[in-house]
C-alpha cells in the first residue's frame, strides 16, 4: 500500500499537465484513506474519504478551469539544486528516524503519556464509545475551537480574494446570469436519486459520531459535497436559489458561534470554558449535551464554509466566461 503511495507521488512528479496531476492527486487521496484504514484510524480515513473523494479534486479542477491546464516544461539545469537539497534533507531525516521507537510498539512515548488516560477513563467521564469524538469534542475542545475558527477564517479569506473587484465585496448578492447548460438528463436523474442519500448520510454521520466513526467535520464535508454536486449539474444560479450565498455565509458564522456559546454557557454555569459537565445536573449527561451541541456547530460551520468556497470559485469561473 505504501509502495503504491510512493509510486503515485513519483508519477506526480513525472507527469506534466495539470489535469493529469489532479487525477493522480485524487488517486493519492484514495490510497492514503486505505492506508489509514489499515492503521485503525477509522475517523481519519473517514475524513480523508469525504474530503479526498469529492471536494479536494473538485476545487483543483475549478481552479484549473480558470487558469488553464498547461504547464510549462521545467528547466533541467534548474533541477539540480533542488534535487541535491532534497536528497540531503531526506538523508538527514532518515538518520533521524533511526532514533524513533519501532513501529507499533505499545511502550513508545506517544502511547504512554495521555492516551491511556483517555482510553481508560473517557468511558466513565464522557460516556460515549468513540474515544476520538470525546477527545476531539471534550478533552481537547479548545484545540477544536481553534481549528473551526481557522476554517472559518479560510472561508472569509477566499471570499475576500475572489469577490469581483468594484462591487463592494458582496458580488454574490445578485445571482449570476443563467448559463447555458448542456442537457444531462441521465446525470441529473441519477444525481437527484443520490443527493438525498448523501444529505441523509451526512446527518447519520453527524449524529452517529458518538458511537461510530464520524462527527461534525466529516458530516459537514459530505453535506457540502451533495450541494456541490447539485450545483455542478443544475448550474450555479439554481443552487444559489436553493441555498442563497448570504444564508451560507451567515450559517458559517452561526456554526462557529454555536461552538463558542456552548463554552460561554458552561462558563456561566460556574465551570471552566467548554467544560460541559456544568450543562446538566448529571455531569455525563452534560457532556453528552455539550458534545452534540459543538458537533452541530462544527458541522454547520464546515458545510457552510465549503459551500461558500465553492460558490466563490464557481462564480469566478462564470464571470470570466463573459
Amino acid at each position: 500500500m505504501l509502495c503504491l503511495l510512493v509510486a503515485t507521488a513519483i508519477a506526480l512528479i513525472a507527469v506534466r499537465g495539470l489535469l493529469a496531476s489532479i487525477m493522480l492527486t485524487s488517486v493519492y487521496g484514495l490510497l492514503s484513506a486505505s492506508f489509514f484504514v489499515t492503521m485503525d484510524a477509522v475517523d481519519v480515513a473517514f475524513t480523508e474519504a469525504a474530503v479526498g473523494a469529492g471536494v479536494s479534486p473538485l476545487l483543483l479542477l475549478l481552479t484549473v478551469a480558470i487558469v488553464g491546464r498547461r504547464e510549462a516544461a521545467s528547466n533541467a539545469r534548474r533541477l539540480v539544486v533542488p534535487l541535491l537539497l532534497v536528497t540531503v534533507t531526506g538523508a538527514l531525516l532518515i538518520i533521524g528516524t533511526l532514533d524513533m521507537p519501532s513501529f507499533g510498539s505499545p511502550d513508545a512515548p506517544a502511547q504512554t503519556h495521555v492516551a491511556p488516560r483517555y482510553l481508560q477513563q473517557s468511558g466513565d467521564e464522557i460516556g460515549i464509545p468513540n474515544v476520538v469524538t470525546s477527545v476531539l469534542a471534550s478533552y481537547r475542545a479548545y484545540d477544536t475551537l481553534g481549528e473551526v475558527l481557522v476554517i472559518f477564517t479560510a472561508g472569509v479569506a477566499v471570499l475576500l480574494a475572489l469577490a469581483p473587484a468594484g462591487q463592494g465585496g458582496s458580488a454574490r448578492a445578485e445571482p449570476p446570469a443563467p448559463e447555458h447548460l448542456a442537457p444531462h438528463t441521465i446525470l441529473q436523474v441519477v444525481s437527484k436519486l443520490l443527493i438525498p442519500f448523501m444529505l441523509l448520510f451526512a446527518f447519520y454521520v453527524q449524529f452517529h459520531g458518538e458511537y461510530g466513526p464520524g462527527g461534525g467535520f466529516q458530516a459537514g464535508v459530505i453535506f457540502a459535497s451533495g450541494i456541490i454536486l447539485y450545483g455542478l449539474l443544475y448550474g450555479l444560479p439554481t443552487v444559489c436559489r436553493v441555498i442563497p450565498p448570504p444564508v451560507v455565509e451567515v450559517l458559517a458564522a452561526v456554526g462557529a458561534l454555536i461552538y463558542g456559546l456552548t463554552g460561554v454557557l458552561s462558563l456561566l454555569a460556574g465551570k471552566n470554558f467548554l467544560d460541559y459537565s456544568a450543562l446538566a445536573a448529571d455531569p455525563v449527561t452534560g457532556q453528552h449535551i455539550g458534545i452534540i451541541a459543538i458537533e452541530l456547530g462544527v458541522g454547520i460551520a464546515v458545510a457552510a464554509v465549503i459551500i461558500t468556497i465553492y460558490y466563490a470559485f464557481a462564480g469566478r469561473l462564470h464571470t470570466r466566461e463573459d
Partner: protein
Amino acid sequence: MSTLWLWASDACLLIGSFLLLTGALGFLRFPDFYARIHACGVTETLATGFVLLGLLLRSDDAMPQVKLVLILLFVLFSSPTASHALAKAAWNAGVRPRDNSGKRRVSLPHTDP
C-alpha cells in the same frame, strides 16, 4: 454461520476476483479509450456485485448487511453514471473511437449541437 454460506461466499469472491482481473486486463490492453471505458464499466459493475455479495454472505449481523446492500446500490447507480459522464466528456473534448485498423477515425453521426 454455516460452512455452506462460507463456500458460497468464497465462490462469489473468486468469481469477483476473476472479473476484476479481466477488467484490469482489458483496461491495460485495449487499443482505444472507448474500448477501455467499456472494459472498466461492464466488468466493474458485475465484479463489484460479486465481491460485495461474497462479503454479504460472510456476515451474520444485520447492520453490516444493510450497509453492504447500500454500497451495492450506490455503486450500481453511480458507476455507470460516471462512465457515461466520462464518455461524454471525452466526446466533448474531441476524442473519437478508431476502427479495426487502429488508425482511421470512424465517422459517426455527429451528435454535437
